[in-house]
């Protein structure tokens, strides 16, 4: 089975993220970056499927040349190879632009299954996997907390408000996985060394036969009008409990005066 797993380079979880006033896109250069945390679960899930059924795992990353360390990080967990889509014209891509490019790259790789993380920690839209599925004309199994492949059938458990649903589709399919679906492995030293020599194929927009005018900021279907930092919250009243928990009564009074009880 040929499994493609998407990864994204994002600002470190603890970093203060900001928009660049010049073009209103995320400033990715002035912050520490990491592989998007939930993508580690996606890579792990892809590796487990390969280990169970054989085949290969291919990493797909769309991002500037500086995203290469993210690709190496993913490869250090064990995938066989990677595809890196980068092109200056991709800067400023929105949800649909990103999905269109990923779908074009996926068509070239022709996998049996695409595994994605449920969202990235930067834009946090949780929209891209569904849009990729639509462009490919494939089923999208979104939000898997369990994944199994049984012949041509792809089956997931998806959390609901009251329990979970078992959903299945006929592959090829796009699956997005949630944090906690597995316990991602730590890259071994051997894995880190091996990752350096795993092949990474570079694609630009021309390779994907996408017109630069249809990609990036030029092809965007939405725009940021303006943005402002949120005014800082004012710290309110803080009371110190005397040790017997009696401050709870003051807190209850606060809740009651604000009509919460």
């Amino acid at each position, binding site marked *: 089975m040929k499994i493609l797993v998407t990864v994204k380079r994002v600002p470190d979880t603890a970093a203060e993220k900001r928009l660049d006033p010049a073009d209103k896109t995320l400033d990715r250069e002035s912050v520490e970056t990491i592989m998007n945390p939930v993508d580690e679960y996606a890579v792990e899930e892809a590796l487990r499927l390969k280990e169970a059924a054989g085949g290969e795992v291919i990493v797909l990353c769309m991002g500037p040349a500086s995203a290469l360390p993210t690709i190496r990080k993913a490869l250090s967990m064990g995938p066989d190879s990677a595809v890196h889509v980068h092109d200056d014209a991709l800067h400023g891509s929105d949800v*649909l632009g990103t999905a269109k490019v990923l779908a074009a790259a996926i068509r070239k790789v022709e996998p049996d299954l695409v595994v994605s993380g449920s969202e990235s*920690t930067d834009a946090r839209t949780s*929209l891209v996997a569904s849009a990729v599925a639509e462009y490919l004309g*494939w089923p999208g199994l979104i939000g898997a907390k369990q994944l199994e492949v049984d012949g041509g059938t792809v089956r997931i458990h998806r959390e609901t408000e009251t329990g979970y649903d078992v959903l299945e*589709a006929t592959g090829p399919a796009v699956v997005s996985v949630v944090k906690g679906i597995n316990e991602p492995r730590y890259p071994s030293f051997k894995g880190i060394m091996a990752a350096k020599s795993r092949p990474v194929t570079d694609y630009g927009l021309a390779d994907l036969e996408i017109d630069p005018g249809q990609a990036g900021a030029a092809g965007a279907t939405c725009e940021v009008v303006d943005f402002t*930092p949120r005014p800082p919250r004012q*710290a309110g009243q803080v009371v110190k409990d005397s040790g017997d928990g009696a401050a709870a009564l003051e*807190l209850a009074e606060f809740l009651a005066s604000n009509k919460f009880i």
Partner: protein
Amino acid sequence: MASILVLVEHDQGNLRKVTAQMLTKARQLGEPVAVFVGDGLDSATEALGRYGAKTVYSATGEGWTNQLTLPVVDALEAAADRAEPAAVLVAATPGGKDAGVRLAARKGWGVLADVVDLDDNLVATQNVFGGATIVHSRVTAGTPVLTIKPNAFPVEESPAQPEVVDLGLTRQAGPADVRMTEHVVEERGGRPDVAEAEIVVSGGRGLQDPANFALVEALADALGAAVGASRAAVDAGWYPHQHQVGQTGKTVSPQLYVAVGISGAIQHRAGMQTSKTIVAVNKDGEAPIFSISDFGVVGDLFKVIPRLTEEVVKRKG
């Protein structure tokens, strides 16, 4: 007046709150038109009328029951083709987003995630980077598909008699269809979902032991709240992942957020700092959570929380 299409989120015809919230907003922007997919059309129609829906486009019966993605997208598309709306509103829930973005991709229409406000020109407000930045944005291609964050808009009734229009769609199974083979209901204590609850009580490392989440749950039940958890508590295996609030968990914006034994690291604040009111109980008076709290108690949560729960129960009578 241009219509505003609203995808109905419901459970067997029982509207979810976000549907009424979207209809209330839709009335300010144009003529609200609902799209209903699934079972329970009659009871849903009555409720949709209460919030001012002028038309209800329906796809119901065989093949439409489970509201799985593609049937919903097909129905939305058919309704949009008829109504030619100025905008399509879907809930920013997993199902709403999945269907909404597929409609957007199919039509080449722009889509915006997690909208918390809309002006008359359909310029949307979004809280990004965990609420640290407020963005105004708009769709520049096609009909805007706007995914609306639950609890972003208040609900007001405005009774109307909706005209029910069967979209007359027949559906044949296609290769991209998803099938539901099981719908499993688990005992969850009947608490609301953390992402949509009006009150969230969250526990963190200060609880010291997974068994102590019982204190958080008891307070949550007294308040009618959902239970959340910090990343530290979830990563330690004390509470399930789907309850995690923060940068790598859920972003919540309830009326009231109660942080119990949570220090308030930046990645946690990114998931809750847009809450209307924040209260915190923590033994460390220097904890950053107090700098964003409207009311804080520096004290031993094992003393404070049980007394608070008792007092809430007493006052609620």
